[in-house]
């Protein structure tokens, strides 16, 4: 019951912020319930896929997700994830947790300055965005207005996505935070587009590494079932909220969460293996 309730919360938050909720599921299971870290990570992979599919179904229908950007960037994340899985073992994961935790913590600062920002202003398509027809629009559910947006610094976003994939492959985390960051700070998409497109993409990233966890027997059925059901229900509740929320509200959910994730990564890097 605790697992279900906690997962429900993870699903709600994950669906809004564009992350998989692993950040909540892993500590809940390990610290809260004393589950071995292997099964906790196995369950968090399930939680990521459940959040992604559960939330994205609604967002795709509402046209919030930019499908072209998602498909393009998935090339970068899957390549990154494969690279990460191959070179893992050559590098000390504890060092990686500290490095990426620190990077994330530093990236929080510019976001705090922009926390009230509703839409990025004066963004013009770069040459790649034109060629790949990335610019799009979504309907603001509150005002009924169409919000059109352009996309900039596509190579930067692509590069950051490769790193996000690399982190997933190396550390076995969904890295939704890095994806949101790549689209928000890198390509300057509206926050809701960044968050929902990230949500859509993390399912693919997680599925890419799920094969490994499944064949190693890390996915425990009786843990996975309540986690998946809780997260699915939570994700569906979360989508209701996001569709009607403003971009700056989504930012206010995302930024503190990102700081928490950064700190959790630093803790994992300095304490356990």
């Amino acid at each position: 019951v605790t697992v279900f309730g906690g997962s429900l919360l993870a699903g709600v938050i994950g669906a809004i912020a564009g992350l998989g909720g692993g950040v909540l599921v892993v500590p809940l299971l390990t610290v809260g319930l004393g589950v071995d870290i292997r099964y906790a990570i196995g369950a968090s992979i399930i939680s990521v896929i459940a959040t992604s599919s559960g939330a994205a179904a609604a967002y795709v229908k509402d046209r919030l997700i930019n499908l072209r950007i998602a498909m393009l960037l998935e090339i970068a994340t899957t390549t990154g994830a494969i690279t990460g899985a191959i070179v893992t073992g050559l590098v000390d994961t504890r060092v990686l947790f500290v490095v990426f935790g620190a990077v994330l913590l530093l990236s929080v600062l510019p976001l705090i300055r922009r926390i009230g920002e509703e839409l990025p202003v004066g963004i013009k398509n770069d040459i790649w965005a034109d060629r790949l027809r990335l610019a799009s629009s979504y309907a603001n559910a509150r005002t009924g207005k169409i919000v059109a947006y352009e996309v900039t610094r596509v190579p930067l976003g692509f590069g950051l996505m490769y790193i996000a994939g690399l982190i997933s492959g190396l550390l076995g985390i969904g890295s939704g935070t890095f994806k949101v960051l790549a689209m928000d700070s890198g390509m300057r998409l509206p926050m809701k587009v960044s968050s929902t497109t990230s949500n859509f993409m993390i399912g693919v990233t997680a599925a890419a590494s799920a094969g490994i966890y499944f064949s190693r027997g890390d996915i425990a059925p009786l843990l996975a079932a309540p986690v998946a059901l809780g997260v699915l229900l939570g994700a569906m509740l979360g989508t209701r909220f996001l569709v009607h929320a403003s971009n700056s509200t989504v930012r206010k959910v995302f930024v503190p969460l990102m700081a928490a994730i950064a700190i959790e990564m630093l803790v994992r890097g300095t304490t356990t293996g």
Partner: protein
Amino acid sequence: VTVEEAPPGGKPLPGETASHSPINDVIALILRGGVYTSAVILVLGLVLFLIQSPAGRSVVTEVLRSSTVRPDIPTSFGAVGQGLRNFNASSIIELGVLVLLATPVIRVAASIFLFLFEADWLYTVLTSVVLVLLLISIFLLGALGIG
């Protein structure tokens, strides 16, 4: 970014063609279908587990807390299939998990055909690349036990 009034009659805005295509609806349908199917299987498996072994809960908790004892978890398609024939609750739950895992993969595969259907060659190719990379990482790396 420009904010405009919604055009009457749904006239597409520049760069907005994709959102008037059925791609979004089909993908939403696939994701929703995968999620609901898996949820139903998971609930069935959980209920069956509680009927089969009402006292099993504490045992499971003990096993999951230990890093040395290997619980009996089916790890291959064969093992899951075997358990399904015996109405093994764990195998039914793993089937639900597999349906959930397959959902994003099916979504990518279906997108290839949707872009193809729209004669969007560029994105047909890009999405195919994603599918190949995804399958490489699931099956090849999974089989090698890397990661």
